[in-house]
């Protein structure tokens, strides 16, 4: 073999290692989707904290390479695989819940406990999607994992799908986050359809002041009641209420600041990047993924329907002056605070002086608790 032939052979081998040699149409499609996510996040400001890491992760995960070099997210021993461990084993979602607990003010909910029930009613989206998924031929575990998209809670969706249907986790997470970003587009038409003009103008009683003692008691009573009923929701609910206690106790300000600041930021970066990277063309571009996206949209619609209709039903039993504006029913899905903002936005369109944001935050945070409880039930039934 001459030197030239040797050089040519090495060059050929090098070419085999490049992404150009291993590229497929699927990879191009997935990289394009990643770029669209980044565009939507930067140009349209749709959930940038999530869509930028996920979009970039999609690009990272879909740059093809020669197998066996310990590069890919699914290759044991690769850096990405180590980071992905936190997703597969459900480590990241509870840490995110810790941060959410530390940054959430449950005052609106404590001052008007009726709003708990709206948060529960909106969880019907989860179970509606579960039934539709079963009818479409998904296995019970897969149907449970798909249904949780209706909870509109990314970490909960990742947590449950990592346990019930790990192979669908990428599609479920991307679907959940995509629809959470599209809450301002999906919910308003349903809210307008289900409410009359008179109902949209209902003014709610201003929330009362909540004492510090009540705020401290909330996480303690919350964890005891919910986790005694659904212990399988402990990883999520435990961390949520723990984070809230750090915030409300007033003596652990440093811990609360870390939980709601650097910790949640780090975990968001890791979860976003790895979930994005897990959507490799070979595992993501399947007919199942298309079905998951369709079912995700359906679950959001059912959840919004459930929340708004429950408010209307509740109003039948409430005295005048204590009635609930049904426009806050959509906030029962736990896309915090986007769905509460939607309530405020739609309310303002009909009465500029009617501020629904604070009222909508009640069912919104109740939805976080509700979806975590629902995930716990799914886990105990189907795992």
């Amino acid at each position, binding site marked *: 073999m001459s030197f030239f032939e040797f050089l040519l052979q090495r060059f050929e081998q090098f070419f085999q290692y490049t992404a150009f040699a291993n590229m497929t149409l699927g990879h191009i499609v997935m990289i394009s989707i990643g770029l669209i996510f980044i565009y939507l996040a930067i140009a349209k400001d749709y959930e940038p904290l999530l869509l930028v890491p996920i979009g970039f992760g999609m690009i990272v995960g879909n740059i093809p390479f020669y*197998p066996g070099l310990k590069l890919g997210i699914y*290759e044991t021993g690769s850096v990405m695989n180590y980071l992905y461990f936190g997703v597969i084993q459900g480590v990241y979602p509870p840490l995110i819940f810790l941060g959410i607990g530390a940054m959430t003010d449950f005052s609106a909910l*404590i001052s008007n406990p009726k709003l*708990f*029930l709206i948060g529960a009613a909106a969880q019907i989206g*989860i179970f509606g999607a*579960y039934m539709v998924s079963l009818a479409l031929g998904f296995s019970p575990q897969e149907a449970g994992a798909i249904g949780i998209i209706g909870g509109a809670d990314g970490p909960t969706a990742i947590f449950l799908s990592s346990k019930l249907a790990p192979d669908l986790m990428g599609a479920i997470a991307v679907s959940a986050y995509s629809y959470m970003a599209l809450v301002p587009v999906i919910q308003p038409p349903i809210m307008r359809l289900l409410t009359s003009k008179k109902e949209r103008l209902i003014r709610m009683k201003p929330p009362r002041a909540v004492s510090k003692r009540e705020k401290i008691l909330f996480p303690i009573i*919350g964890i005891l009641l919910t986790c005694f009923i659904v212990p399988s929701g402990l990883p999520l609910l435990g961390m949520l209420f723990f984070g809230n206690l750090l915030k409300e106790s007033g003596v652990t300000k440093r811990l609360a600041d870390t939980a709601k600041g650097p910790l949640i930021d780090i975990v968001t970066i890791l979860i976003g990047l790895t979930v994005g990277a897990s959507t490799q063309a070979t595992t993501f571009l399947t007919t199942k993924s298309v079905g998951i996206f369709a079912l995700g949209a359906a679950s959001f619609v059912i959840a919004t329907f459930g929340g708004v209709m429950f408010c209307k039903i509740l109003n039948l039993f409430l005295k005048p002056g204590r009635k609930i504006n049904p426009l806050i029913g959509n906030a029962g899905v736990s896309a915090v605070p986007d769905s509460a903002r939607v309530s405020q936005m739609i309310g303002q369109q009909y009465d500029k002086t009617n501020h629904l944001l604070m009222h909508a935050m009640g069912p919104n945070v109740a939805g976080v608790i509700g979806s975590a409880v629902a995930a716990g039930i799914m886990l105990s039934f*189907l795992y």
Partner: protein
Amino acid sequence: MNQIIKFILLLSSIMLFRPGFSQNQTDICINEVMTINSNGPIDNFGHHVAWIEIFNSSYGSVNIANMYLTDDVNNPRKYQLPIDNRMVLSPRSYCLFYFDGNSEHGVFHSNFKLDSTGFIALYASNATTLIDSVSFSFSKADQTCARSIDGEGDWVVSDSYTPGQTNETESKIKTAELFVQYDPIGIGMALVAFSVVMCALALLYFMFKLLSNLFQTKVTVKNKKESILAVSNQDDIQVLSGEINAAIALAIHLYRNEMHDHEEAVITIKKVTKTYSPWSSKLYMLRQTPNKPVQNPFKRK
């Protein structure tokens, strides 16, 4: 220009028609072994022969071609898995290899036989990296040595065998199958689960309703004792608009979170006197006493 288009087309065709593998052979493992096969699974020739089950534990396809199977520690290259499309294992899938010592029977037939007591190992395509191995000893026919959990559990000798299927036959699959059997449309599960969510949050509702009543009663009693005079001014209480409430809430929020502007200087009407002290004297701060520059004697006046 045409050349550029041709190049792009060529590159695209290479990209489109190449299979995309991005997985690792370390995700492959031996999942089940049966060496004394009298009534177990048959191969494609209808023979009962020893077999092993290989499992892809990852969530991506893995090409196992060129990997090695051996029952001899000193000879890892005993049987090399052939290059074939069927050697690409899809995510979380299984394949069986038969040990009839006749590799001409197909790609899934090895060139050696397995004894009832022995050892089987799977090596990577470099023939040096050991991927997985298991030692076994069977006392009777149709026993298997299998992992309790696919790809990771302990090895268990059992009388039941699950070729090409998951070894986790007990609890997990049973629950799901029961759901499909008794509740095919999921209405039962949905109703029960939704009721549990409703109950959990309704409990929270009742508890906090109770608490809120308790706290409000306390506050009312306290207020009654402390502010009898305020009762006379009830008529003067005005209903504040939402904007005013929002402004007050924002101010309180900023104050509580110490986000208000913090003034370093103290504004006062008192006279500020600066008493003399040698410690603050500029003169004593200097390291050298400044001298008057000496005038040049040669300079003409």
